[in-house]
């Protein structure tokens, strides 16, 4: 039997604030254990929370970017349960009055474009991190109290590919709004999955399972693939799906049961009496609306239009805000945006991926890229040399013109000089010469290559080609 999958996601996003959700502790990643803590985030007796307004702004901004309705009356609730990494044994979260309700994220999956609807976006505090060292267990509370935004989707996705596309699209938008770094290595984005399957043609949804705490997008994709296959197998062999919480074991590539719904928590939500409700004025929301940045899709369209570059280029560039920013700066300084785009899309992306770097860590500046393109356009360097200079700029920075000279890459466009190379190439490759004269076009290409080799890449390939053609008659 053919089954259809139904997938919903709860995405937890660490917000890009300098300080924690309810105290003035820093949110820097990678600090020594328990060095960014205070009585408030450790839940010490008598300590009280105070709302971080920047976290509220970022959450509301996210809602505005995604077309949610913003609740002007909102409040924080206590979610009660015991866990060693949770200082107060209740988490301050939002229950029935989240900041944002509804909204959607547009995704592209293959050729298909679709909207994934959102249920809500709310704000809460993160918990600490348990660490197990041999027999010993300890807790690092640096993360406890970090502002955490939770984006809850409707069960609108039908495949692991769509879930993956959703996460990418969401990440792009959050990056654009400077809402979160969305750095997966630093645990900035974590995800819970709800997944069920049902036979094709049936309306009613199947029994769902929840897979907790995925921290990579690839993990979400793989866990869903596994889970859908597992559920399909259970149903095909006449079994039943139990509603339960499962865990993704990335080492073994399987999901496994954590606890069944019968032992589910009663969180006993109630309004946190230490915090007053949050009342947002219309003026405040309008003010924040002004912060809505141009979103990836809009930027894609604009890049294609403004710089006359292909749709494909615009899409790749706009997918990453930093990349697009870099491109626009360089393209603005250049008369040849397409050439700039080519460099960014090929050389830049390749080097970033090879060296596992972020664009801000590369030494090349938009100005130097624009100059490099100019050198190439003016015929002072050929494309090979340009790539070499680009790599050097990427690594160490500097001025392209000076690098070109220092690296000895100035293109030889002096006809006399090139004639020497042409002569040498013809002398040492008589077979190719006769082949060409016998009508083999390909031999010309080989001879041009020889000229380039003899000139150590500096000869102007167009001129070499023209001269060869003349000589070969």
């Amino acid at each position, binding site marked *: 039997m053919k089954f259809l999958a139904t997938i919903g996601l709860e995405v937890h996003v660490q917000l890009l604030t300098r300080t924690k959700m309810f105290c003035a502790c820093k949110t820097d990643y990678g600090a020594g254990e328990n060095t960014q803590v205070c009585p408030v985030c450790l839940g*010490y007796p*008598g300590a009280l929370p105070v709302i971080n307004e920047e976290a509220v702004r970022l959450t509301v901004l996210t809602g505005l970017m995604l077309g949610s309705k913003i609740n002007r009356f909102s409040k924080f609730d206590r979610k009660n349960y*015991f866990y*060693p990494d949770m200082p107060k044994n209740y988490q301050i979260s939002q229950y029935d009055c989240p900041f944002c309700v509804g909204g959607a994220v547009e995704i592209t999956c293959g050729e298909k474009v679709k909207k994934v609807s959102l249920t809500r976006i709310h704000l809460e505090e993160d918990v600490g991190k348990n660490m197990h060292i041999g027999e010993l267990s300890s807790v690092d509370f640096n993360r406890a109290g970090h502002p955490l935004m939770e984006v809850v989707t409707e069960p609108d996705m039908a495949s692991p590919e769509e879930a993956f596309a959703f996460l990418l699209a969401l990440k792009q938008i959050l990056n654009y709004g400077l809402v979160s770094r969305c750095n997966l290595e630093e645990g900035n984005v974590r995800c819970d999955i709800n997944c069920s399957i049902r036979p094709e043609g049936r309306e009613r949804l199947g029994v769902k399972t929840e897979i907790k705490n995925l921290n990579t997008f690839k993990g979400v994709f793989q866990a869903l693939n596994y889970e859908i296959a597992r559920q399909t197998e259970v149903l095909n062999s006449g079994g039943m799906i139990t509603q339960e919480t499962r865990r993704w074991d990335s080492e073994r590539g399987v999901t496994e049961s954590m606890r069944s719904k019968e032992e589910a928590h009663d969180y006993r939500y109630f309004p946190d009496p230490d915090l007053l409700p949050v009342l947002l004025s219309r003026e405040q929301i309008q003010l924040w609306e002004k912060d809505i940045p141009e979103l990836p899709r809009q930027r894609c369209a604009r890049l294609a239009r403004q710089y006359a570059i292909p749709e494909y280029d615009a899409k790749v560039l706009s997918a990453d805000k930093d990349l697009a920013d870099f491109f626009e700066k360089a393209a603005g300084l250049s008369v040849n945006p397409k050439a700039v785009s080519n460099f960014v899309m090929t050389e830049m992306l390749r080097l970033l991926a090879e060296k596992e770097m972020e664009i801000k860590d590369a030494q090349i500046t938009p100005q130097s890229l624009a100059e490099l393109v100019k050198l190439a356009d003016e015929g002072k360097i050929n494309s090979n040399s340009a790539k070499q200079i680009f790599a050097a700029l990427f690594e160490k920075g500097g001025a392209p013109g000076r690098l070109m000279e220092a690296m000895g890459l100035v293109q030889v466009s002096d006809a006399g000089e090139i004639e020497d190379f042409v002569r040498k190439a013809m002398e040492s490759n008589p077979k190719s010469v006769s082949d060409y004269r016998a009508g083999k076009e390909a031999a010309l290409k080989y001879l041009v290559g020889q000229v380039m080799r003899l000139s150590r890449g500096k000869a102007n390939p167009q001129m070499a080609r023209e001269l060869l053609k003349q000589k070969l008659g």
Partner: protein
Amino acid sequence: MAEVSALLRERKCSSLELVQELIAVIRKNDSQIGAFVSLDEEYALAQARRADELRRKGTELPLLGVPLAVKDLINVQGQTCTCASRILSGYVAPYDATVIARLRREGAVFLGRTNMDEFAMGASTENSAYKITRNPWNRDYVPGGSSGGSAAAVAADETIAALGSDTGGSVRQPASFCGCVGLKPSYGRVSRYGLTAFASSLDQIGPMTKCVRDAAILLKTIAGHDERDSTSAKITVPDYESGLRTDLKGLKIGLPKEYFIDGMDAEVEKCVRAAVAECERLGAAIVDVNLPMTPHAVAVYYIIACAEASANLARFDGVRYGCRAKNADDPYEMYCRTRAEGFGAEVKRRIILGTYVLSSGYYDAYYLRAQKVRTLIRRDFERVFAEECDVLLAPVAPAPAYKIGEKIEDPLQMYLGDIFTIPANLAGICALSVPCGFTAQNLPVGLQILGPAFREDVLLRAGYAYEQAAQWHLRRPDVKK
């Protein structure tokens, strides 16, 4: 306190001498009274020396060198803060509560920690994990609670003044039982930062003093907005002391019918009625008023207070501080055993009650309903203060202090003793307890003055005028007896 400040200012005595004198009194009497759970003599003497040093250098601060006692649930950096619970035995506070920081800034000296009912749950100070506090007027009797240690220390002259906390009457009722002045400020008037929470929406820190003027001085120091407590109000703090007056001309006093009920102790009623007459003589106009929602207050209180407490006390789990049960196999067992061993019976009773009223399926019937009735109770007060009177006069408790052990086996009876104090906490208004006479057995009786939110100035003015006319506050217990 005013006299002590004058003595210190005029260099007739030093803070060191004063603290040494008090320590001597505490050494002599406190084995009988049990007002303090811990006394860090070195710490107190060092602060006194520092205060004297500052004065020698010419520093003048309102409370410079004045010794105060602090209820054991308000955090003082470097001192133990056990909340009279085993679960926090030996716990040393890593920071100052905002009220402590403000008193410190004015030069106050912190003598020691006063006994209380565990986590402020109780009305007799019999629920402390460490000791029973006795009423200085008669050691067979309870001092009231939960700030019983602070009240007893003030009454027995073991301190100049003290801080207590009032969630459902915990400042006013012991003040009434021990014959001192106790003020519960309006909710939001005083920062709760550093006050170990019992019920966050009801708790307020309040001064416990020998006279109304002292309460005015202390309130002025500790009141005002604190950015660390978002429930603290951004409302200007008046100079309460300079607002005090000795007459009540033009003041309209309401007598709430629901506070003079059948079953109320006859001697208490007599004292309170006499006080009302005294106030009339001082120029106040007396009117009868109704607060019809009053009978529901106790039920509403025990739902809301327990619900909040069940969450507030969840942090005591043995993971980060306080006591931890030994040899548990997993975290769950560790929590269960730590909390089973660490909390006393009354605390457990309230956590269980609070957990129950918040649980799914019962939330609407209990917690949500209680919140709605709470709103109605608040509206009762808003209406009478808007339309009928400036303040209300009422008894603090239906009866004077009772014997130790008399009610401890009957929590419900004990809960009903809070009937006259609880509504002020639910409504967030301010209320003051002032001595207004003695029973035939020489036990103090307190008069309660209730005022609109943030009108402590009116309350203190009325309390002061009455106190100065009646002079009950000058009687001292014979602690040797």
